[in-house]
């Protein structure tokens, strides 16, 4: 794929133009990346494509190599790996809380103890998800104003 980067005068809007023959997974990935930078993620539900605003996401979960996004009441499948999504959303209040899950910290209403040193995050829609022991130090660090390592 040929890459063309051109400087434009400030009077012109900054534009990303994708010229394609077919919408391959590679093209779809680039589209998803650009949209995510604009605060939206391209995901599918019941065979239809949707633009899901990042601020509406509660959490993302990887199940059998497929990644799902969850809003207050809907779920969508996204064609991305969880670590790619983590990288994309790390400056948007998202944090890894287990091997298979990212949570939007803005959608967590409280934290309570679960069994065996783990914690549960109670989400604003009433759902409860587990925070693994391994990821608790990173959570504490982010909440104290640092960056997760």
């Amino acid at each position, binding site marked *: 794929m040929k890459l063309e980067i051109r400087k434009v005068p400030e009077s012109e809007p900054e534009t990303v133009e994708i010229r394609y023959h077919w919408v391959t997974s590679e093209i779809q990935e680039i589209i998803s990346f650009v949209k995510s930078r604009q605060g939206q993620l391209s995901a599918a539900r019941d065979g239809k494509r949707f633009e899901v605003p990042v601020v509406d996401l509660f959490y993302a979960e990887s199940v059998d190599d497929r990644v799902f996004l969850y809003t207050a009441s809907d779920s969508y499948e996204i064609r991305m790996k969880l670590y790619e999504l983590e990288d994309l959303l790390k400056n948007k*209040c998202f944090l890894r809380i*287990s*091997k298979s899950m990212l949570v939007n*910290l*803005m959608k*967590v209403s*409280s*934290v*309570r*103890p679960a*069994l*065996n*040193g*783990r*914690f549960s995050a109670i989400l604003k829609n009433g759902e409860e998800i*587990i925070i*693994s*022991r391994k990821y608790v130090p990173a*959570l*504490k660090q*982010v*909440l*104290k*104003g640092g960056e997760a390592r």
Partner: protein
Amino acid sequence: MTRSGWKKLLISALRLYTLLVALITVLMIILGTLLDRGRVFSYEAFFSPLLYALIGTAAAMVTRSDKEPSVRSLIIRKVISLLLIEGAILFLALNSPAIPTEKSWVLPGLALGVLAVFVLAHVIQYAADSKEAEQLSADLARYQEKQTGRI
């Protein structure tokens, strides 16, 4: 396991050991005062809580896992851990001349005492986790307030 993993394991084992020593000492005081008030011990009796706590800690460490167990697997591990502790303590009691196992209340009393210490240790750990969760919730509220201010 990594070096920091071993360090964490050691810290949690020491924390559990200290907690168990304290709880076992309290249990011995209560059981002894209630059931065998007139008994006199030598200084060696001070070793008992240290030894029993060591058994309890070893059993907890044997059944722990670095993986995140499911609730079902966690309960099974806890039950195995309790059975190991009960078995070891009763074995020690039956082979110790200082413990009057011929008296009918001694073995059931010990078994119940071990169960009480086991439950109490978990309740105390849960209380400590609750305090930590409260702190996390407060930090989370501050974080959300700060992030909303940025937007």
